[in-house]
């Protein structure tokens, strides 16, 4: 099975379809669980497979789209993604388990204003089709509430001044699996600095955020030390500092690593994955080719425009 980060998955009736997003192949790997159910649609024509791939690809983008300022990959509008998935799913309802279509339409119920903001026939057509399907399935499309702007407080404190002496510094990539999509810059490294200040040692951590940053509580582990991170309003980096034992400078380099994670989302107990850097670079490169491309999903086509 392909690595989860590069897998577009469709859970269909009696079978699972996998596409490797890094591969050009349009035909999926199919795992049949219930031959009798899957026989109803497995021999369908290419149009059905194309719609199936759209549904799976959108799920992939919702989970793994590598939004990154340093790599120039804008965040996608998740409402546009969901609208496209819902319309594609409804077109192949005979391939999907019962109530999948209703579920995708429900997830897209707040997409109308996002579609209305996109000029052109493609968005208008999608909006019209979405409205029709929602009515047929008893889903009421909603106007979203105005976004809450409660957290406008500025990040406390400025950069440290004066008597600090930098002892050590370094960077570590952020493991995508430890944070939700769109919270941390997918391509930038988190950085750490050990300072001596007034006779004691502190570690300072800075984690670049994704563009259009979605917010989730973040924390970091530096060697044995847990560092709480503050997220400023806007896209600025998440930062934090914590005292460290002076002996931290004596740790082997392999243990002076920084692990960034979202405590509500993941448990930072994963072993390092040697394949991750190359795989993630390839996914970021893929995303760069998709942004602005007319053949991509509407969300990718209009992203960053």
């Amino acid at each position: 099975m392909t690595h989860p980060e590069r897998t577009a998955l469709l859970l269909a009736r009696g079978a699972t379809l996998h596409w490797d997003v890094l591969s050009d192949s349009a035909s999926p790997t199919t795992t049949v669980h219930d031959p009798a159910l899957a026989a109803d649609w497995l021999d369908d024509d290419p149009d059905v497979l194309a719609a199936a791939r759209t549904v799976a690809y959108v799920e992939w983008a919702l989970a793994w789209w590598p939004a990154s300022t340093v790599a120039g990959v804008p965040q996608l509008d998740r409402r546009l993604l969901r609208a496209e998935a819902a319309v594609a799913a409804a077109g192949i309802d005979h391939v999907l388990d019962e109530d999948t279509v209703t579920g995708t339409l429900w997830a897209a119920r707040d997409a109308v204003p996002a579609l209305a903001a996109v000029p052109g026939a493609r968005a208008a057509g999608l909006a019209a089709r979405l409205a029709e399907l929602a009515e047929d399935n008893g889903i009421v499309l909603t106007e979203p509430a105005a976004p809450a702007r409660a957290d406008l407080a500025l990040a406390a404190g400025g950069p440290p001044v004066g008597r600090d002496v930098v002892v050590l510094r370094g960077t570590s990539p952020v493991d995508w699996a430890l944070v939700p999509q769109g919270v941390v810059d997918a391509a930038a490294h988190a950085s750490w600095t050990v300072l001596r200040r007034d006779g004691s040692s502190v570690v300072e951590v800075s984690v670049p955020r994704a563009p259009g940053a979605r917010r989730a509580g973040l924390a970091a582990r530096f060697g044995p030390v847990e560092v709480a991170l503050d997220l400023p309003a806007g896209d600025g980096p998440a930062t934090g500092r914590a005292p460290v034992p002076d002996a931290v400078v004596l740790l082997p380099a392999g243990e002076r690593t920084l692990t960034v994670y979202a405590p509500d989302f993941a448990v930072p107990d994963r072993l390092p994955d040697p394949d991750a850097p190359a795989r993630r670079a390839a996914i970021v490169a893929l995303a760069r080719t998709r942004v602005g491309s007319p053949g991509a999903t509407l969300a990718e086509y209009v992203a960053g425009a």
Partner: protein
Amino acid sequence: MLGPVSVLPGERTVPRAALLARAWSLLGDGVAPLTNAAGRPLARTVKLILDPLVLRPVLNPGFAAGAVSGAHADDLVATITAAGPALRATAEWYLLVKRARRRAGITEGHPQDLYFQRCFELATTHGRPGADAERVAADVVEEVHAGASRLTAEDLRRYLTDPANAGELDRLLRAARHPVPDPARDPGPDPGVAAFLVSGDTAGFPALVAANAGSRGAAELAGPGVARGYGLSDRTVPVPPELGDRASKRDLPRPLDRSVLERLFTTVTGSDPAGLPALVRREIDRTGRAWQLGEEASRVTMVLGRDASAGLEHEPTSGAQRRLRSRWDREAYVHRVLRLPDPAAAGVPEALRADILGVRRAYLRRLWVRLHGREVRGGEVTADALWDLLDGVLRSVILDQRDRLRAALERLVAAR
């Protein structure tokens, strides 16, 4: 793509869905409102109209699910073609009924679920919509949504707590308490249960029912902690239920700890109020029976589900256990692909974490609720639906967990 497929030696068959698609494509644009973008009849068109009202496999066994043999294939296409005018009229009626719904400002319910069969009925009685069609459509919408004579949860609560009834119902509830079977005298599992687990063959189901294999398998529930281990109770040993005077969908107790009110209030809503006293008496009777279920077929299903789901906790040892286990193992990969929260993470509610880490308990709980609901509505478990039920319950548990993990993810990520 629609070529014949050989399934049995010497018999040419065609997948049923492929035949339906071929027959459907001959009906033309007139059935577009019943069709998906791939040109297939909507799943609900098949489920609500074609199967029960046009093809009727009960009367025409040759049209039943799966593969259709050559001789029946032509019949099937001809049957759908013959229904073409009615189906096209159904589509026209559906558009009118939908417009009437919009005009009436109604948003609840699934329109296809609510109106498809009514529209087919209109098509067969009225033909295509005529001069008075708008009025007829408005009447249908009004009728479907008139809730005047439907039973509500509040009716049930009032009935159970009415002093005029409570005394008698309490007496019945006490009388229903059959002597608890002695675990030491448990005659042991029926060998048919083991045979089912190995082969997955459901043909022996009626024999298991006749042998009371379900009731026999319930004796262990009286042992300390057994029902709790199955997720069916929070008590060391379940105690007989009360009538109850309040119920909320949100924090329902474990199935065997539910009051009569809590057992019935979601299931009976919408049924005929005249049946209420009988519904309550049947439920009271159930509470005293093995597994607290009224039909032996349900109890046998509980025993089969209990044993088939053991492979979710331990290395599976039989075909049935492996089948459930492989579905569950697949789900771990699905969670990673969808980048869902780790069940051990702080943002995942405790109840959800417990359901994922103790999936067998979640499974047996839902299986009981399904079987109970089926009994209350008067349905019964049949051998040919057995595996769909046992597997379908796990599927439903998995989908529910996935939805709850998605909801947990939505909560922990805030859009700026």
